[in-house]
């Protein structure tokens, strides 16, 4: 009995460590992607003053959600957080790109960049992510129901 409890707690610790490690790796990968992107966008940020802040806020929230989702894996909260992540992506794409047309004025010159196509594609991909999260949730609830019946 004592040995079984000891094995359970060991496997629990191992599972938590594995989750934490996975979350750390995922977080680190996303952070590296963010660093590379911000480096690439550095020349553009001279012309679009708040682009760095937009990406920074997005990366912070997204990486946090990725880490928390990974830590909550194996529970219903993982799917709830996944859905929240997808909704956040859609909302952020809409809010940051607004109409999808960036207009800047400097001295005697005005610059207009039309990103409506990317806004539309981004939103569609966000919806695809949301659909995936919903499907995962349904699948998880379904599996749990089957286990309970057994």
């Amino acid at each position, binding site marked *: 009995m004592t040995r079984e409890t000891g094995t359970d707690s060991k496997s629990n610790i191992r599972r938590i460590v594995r989750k934490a490690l996975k979350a750390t790796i995922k977080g680190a990968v996303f952070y590296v992607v963010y660093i590379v*992107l911000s480096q*690439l*966008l550095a*020349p*553009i940020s001279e012309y679009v003053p708040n682009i760095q802040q937009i990406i920074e806020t997005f990366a912070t929230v997204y990486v946090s959600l990725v880490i928390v989702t990974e830590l909550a894996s194996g529970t219903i909260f993982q799917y709830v957080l996944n859905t929240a992540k997808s909704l956040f992506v859609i909302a952020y794409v809409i809010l940051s790109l607004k109409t999808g047309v960036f207009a800047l004025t400097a001295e*005697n*010159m*005005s*610059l*207009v*960049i*039309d*990103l409506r*196509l*990317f806004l539309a*594609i*981004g939103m569609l*991909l966000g919806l*695809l*992510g949301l*659909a*995936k999260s919903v*499907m*995962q949730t*349904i*699948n998880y609830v*379904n599996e749990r129901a089957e286990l309970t019946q057994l």
Partner: protein
Amino acid sequence: MKVPIRMTGIATSVLWIFLIIFCVSALYSLKDVQVQFGEPRISLTQDNEMLFSLPIGIFNNGLYNLGRFNVTTVIMGQQDEMLARGSTSLPIISKGEAVNITHQMTVNLTSLLSTYQNLLFNDTELQINATASITAAEVIPVQVSSNLSIPWGAPLYDFTLGPPEFTVIGEANSTVSCRVDVPLSFENHAFFDLAGTVRLRMYNGTNVFTSEGEVAIEVGQHSFYQGSLELYLPASFATRNGYFEVYFSTSLFSNGPLVIPYDT
């Protein structure tokens, strides 16, 4: 259910990565596109139209082709109305390609000078709205617009009639005649040579038409003109004051009457 979920996840991730990389690299490669504007030139065509030429050099050193390059310039009037419009387009600029084009815009000088007569006498600056558009990576439309101004030199800058000099020249049929010498001067600040005539109609102090005369002028660009015009009239019509009506007639424009009073 797990396989479709996994496939959806993979497809979403791949598409996101592709979208972000493509969008960032397309915008990033714009910084490697060099656009150089040459010295704008103004000349006169054989049809007496003002030709505005702007040489443009584009070197696409970016990662993608550039599509639908277009430069449009519009000359605006003083009430923000459009006087002339010119557009130059290129369907595609491949990566690594250097393209040199000349953007041209023609302005009907006759129409311009008849609408805006102050351009005949006053130097000013013509306002030009210039818009350049391009589709980065043939997908992202980018547009830059700016206001430019080009100097306009008046062809009859500082047109002046000097005080008329009356000289009695003789008596015929009991009528005394006199000659009137009217000095006239101006500077041709325009980019074109001026050739035509200046006609004067003289009215005395009681608004009675007294005489008229014409002089041919031929003035090169950026040159000063000084001459005089002779008028003949009966001495009884001559008064100390009155006014002249001035009419200009050249191959580019006709203008008049410009009323200039005199007082000797």
